[in-house]
């Protein structure tokens, strides 16, 4: 096993911050290039006008997912050293629903609002202020929220481990699902383009 480099002690904390900056630049760059720094473009996803968010997000997920699976399969990456987000079913379900509503109200998410602000969008800046205020409300109300926050815990595990199926099979199904989603997204966009042209003429 040769990776993850940081966890194997190839470099220390200070250099990890240099890596953080470089990774961040790449992250911000591709978000902006893909159009994810534009609130109108992001919001259009939720009216079936522009499926860019879905396409960028799922292409990124399957790229990283397949790459990591392959690197672990050839014995390069020790998967047990890669941090997997723990699962808390209800907090993540309720959090997701609220986040989704906030997304269509605000038009940007925490990462993309930075890109939006960096390219001069004032609405991105106001989303950023709002996010700080939301985290502030959470922290101040933490006493009342902590019970719910730690409920329905499954711990750190993956979908293949949860339902006891081979990792490769789940991966294959996710890729199939994503491809079906991409085909659907292209069809939806074409349909809306046609109806838009029709209404304008």
């Amino acid at each position, binding site marked *: 096993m040769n990776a993850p480099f940081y966890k194997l002690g190839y470099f220390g904390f200070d250099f990890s911050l240099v890596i*953080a900056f470089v990774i961040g630049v790449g992250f911000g760059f591709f978000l902006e290039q893909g159009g994810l720094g534009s609130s109108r473009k992001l919001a259009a996803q939720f009216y079936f006008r522009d499926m860019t968010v879905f396409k960028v997000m799922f292409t990124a997920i399957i790229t990283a997912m397949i790459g990591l699976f392959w690197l672990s399969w050839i014995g390069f990456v020790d998967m047990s050293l890669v941090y997997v987000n723990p699962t808390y079913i209800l907090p993540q379900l309720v959090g997701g629903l*609220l986040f989704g509503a906030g997304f269509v109200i605000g038009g940007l998410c925490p990462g993309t609002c930075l890109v939006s602000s960096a390219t001069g969008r004032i609405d991105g800046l106001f989303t950023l202020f709002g996010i700080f205020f939301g985290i*502030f409300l959470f922290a101040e109300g933490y006493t009342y929220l902590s019970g719910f926050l730690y409920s329905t815990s499954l711990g750190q595990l993956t979908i293949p481990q949860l339902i006891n199926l081979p990792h490769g099979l789940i991966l294959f199904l996710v890729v199939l699902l994503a491809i079906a989603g991409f085909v659907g997204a292209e069809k939806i966009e074409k349909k809306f383009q046609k109806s838009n042209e029709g209404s304008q003429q």
Partner: protein
Amino acid sequence: MIREKKAKPYLNPYLAGVGLGIVLLLAFVIMGRGLGASGGFTSVLTTGVDAIASEHASENDVYSSYLGDRERSPLTDWLVIELFGVIVGGFLSGLISGRIKRTVEKGPGISSGRRLLFAFLGGTLMGFAAKLARGCTSGQALTGGALLSPGSWIFMISIFIGAYAFAYFMRRQWI
């Protein structure tokens, strides 16, 4: 700053996705962790609260967990530096593509003031929700999604359900 320069069209979404995926993969391989955003925001907020009301910050479970043993500032944090990179990367990308523009993005049926109010309210809801879910679209949906974490997939699917369900009420802001 940059005027009358014609904005280039966005990159093909699948290419942008592959680029983003490779950045995420590099984070896994080099650091053993993925990307994030809301966690870094909490570090920044904690620093602010600590500066204004240090005692209050120490007594609060959320802030104190981000303050740690106070050996170094919460700003000396992987996610905070990564977010600084996101701002720089986003700006550079906008610069080379001629997309830096001081504007308020909105649909035709809403005033700029109301749009900014909604941006703030939506942000507030997302900030709160991201803390509840232990991450946002970066840390949960993208990172946890690629790692096949069940909770991250629940979060991601719930985002789409929540957004599509609420989209009708926001239609005048966008279309």
